[in-house]
């Protein structure tokens, strides 16, 4: 019974890890950079959802989409203002691309954290739950009503992302740019627009996760730091750039942590994923996440 319980809890956590990681991995797929402000998209989503609901009394079913929109807008603006130099002009930047992207997104992360800390304050806010039902019995497993609803929405959105990537023209364009930017642009796809759209989607997904988790993990200025670290682990595990990999790795990490917390150590549960990340990069520096640059 314990095993089933741990598995279900782990999978439920894993859905949120996957939700966070999909956006990050899509960005890596398109621009080959890691967005170190990803956690702050999550944080902004958590605040938008929580504050609109609690302070303005807007119904949660409206504040959740609002959080997504704000996150998407933030993602889009980030791409237009800070990511463009990575591919528009600056031909000599090839060498410094990683450095620039890391520093600038790291700076954005600091900016958003401190902005929120100053404007809204350092105190945590608890988001309202989507439904009031406290406990739901799923056969032998007992789950919290909000958590179950949030997980369900998360699964639905992940399914939606898959359907989008697989069945729509726009989804195929994203894949085309990820596979071969130059080729895609020759085929008439504007990589700049795709990048902006992917950033917006990524911000929206992260903000969505932030909203869903706000009743469970209180919104605070640095709430995203921790979440972001989890999504780095998931993205590396699943293969940088792979959406399916991110989902599988997200669920895996959720379950691994839930078992590890019980059978290895509760205090160190947050280190498991980090150790896995380092081990993966040490022993599968290519392979797991696709290509490694040719040496010559």
């Amino acid at each position, binding site marked *: 019974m314990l095993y089933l319980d741990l598995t279900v809890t782990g999978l439920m956590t894993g859905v949120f890890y996957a939700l966070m990681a999909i956006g990050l991995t899509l960005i890596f797929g398109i621009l080959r950079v890691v967005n170190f402000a990803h956690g702050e998209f999550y944080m902004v989503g958590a605040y938008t959802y929580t504050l609109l609901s609690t302070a303005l009394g807007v119904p949660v079913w409206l504040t959740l989409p609002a959080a997504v929109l704000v996150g998407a807008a933030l993602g889009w603006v980030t791409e237009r203002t800070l990511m463009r130099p990575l591919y528009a002009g600056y031909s000599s930047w090839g*060498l410094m691309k990683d450095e620039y992207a890391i520093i600038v997104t790291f700076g954005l992360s600091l900016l958003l954290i401190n902005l929120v800390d100053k404007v809204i304050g350092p105190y945590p806010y608890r988001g309202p739950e989507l439904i009031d039902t406290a406990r739901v019995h799923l056969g032998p497993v007992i789950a919290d009503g909000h958590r179950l609803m949030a997980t369900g929405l998360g699964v639905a959105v992940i399914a939606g992302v898959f359907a989008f990537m697989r069945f729509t023209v726009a989804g195929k364009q994203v894949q085309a740019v990820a596979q071969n930017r130059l080729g895609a642009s020759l085929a008439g796809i504007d990589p700049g627009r795709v990048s902006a759209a992917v950033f917006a989607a990524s911000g929206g997904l992260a903000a969505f996760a932030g909203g869903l988790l706000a009743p469970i993990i209180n919104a605070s200025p640095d709430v995203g730091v921790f979440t972001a670290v989890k999504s780095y682990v998931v993205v590396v595990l699943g293969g940088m750039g792979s959406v399916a990999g991110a989902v599988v790795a997200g669920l895996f990490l959720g379950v691994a942590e839930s078992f590890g917390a019980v059978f290895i150590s509760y205090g160190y549960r947050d280190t498991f994923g980090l150790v896995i990340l380092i081990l993966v990069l040490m022993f599968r520096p290519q392979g797991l996440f696709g290509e490694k640059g040719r*040496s*010559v």
Partner: protein
Amino acid sequence: MTFLKVKGLEKRFGGRHAVDSVHFDVAAGELVGLIGPNGSGKTTLLNMLSGHLAPDGGTVTLEGREVTRLPVHRRARAGILRMFQLTRVFDRVSTLDNLLVAGRGLGLNARDALTRARALLDELSLSPVAALDAGRLSGGQRKLLEFGTCFMVPPRIALLDEPFAAVHPSMREIMGRFVRERHALGQTFLLVSHDMPVVREMCERSVCMNAGSILADGNTEDVLNDPAVIEAYLGGEAA
């Protein structure tokens, strides 16, 4: 005497042989042209000679010393210096310092490296841009600079991959003269080039590769007139 000896060198990518059991020797002081259609394995071979690619079989011997498994930097210090087809220089350090990196890396002391670098800058007409970051140089100047870094310490053998491609004729002239002069003084070269007139003019001997194997090896004129070589080039162009 055999200076550079390549014995049974091979490399597979996936199931395909990029280089398939290649044998050839270079004698001291030779200027050998390495030709062949695109995808014939020239650059792969060069990568194995310079240590950028580990061969799946075979050996490389330089002056009787086997270097097959030496890492790139040790092979450079052993005197195998190569120029890349796509120029590689250090963009955020100056032209002069690019040369100094090579000099110090290959074991010169600070003063000798500086003397040598100044002389090379003059010889390659790069003195006016000595203090510029290499990232700001023109494509041709970058190529000249990379060429220069091969000669900070006279190499045992210089491997040049398409040094003359896409370079302004005046710079091509500078490099060409440099190669001829050093060759006259006994410098050994392996020159990869697509430019047949250049190969014809500079190399007494040529090796032609096709599909990972050596198709012809000998006097350049004979190699270029070899029906198999002509066939390989025409076939390559037709494909």
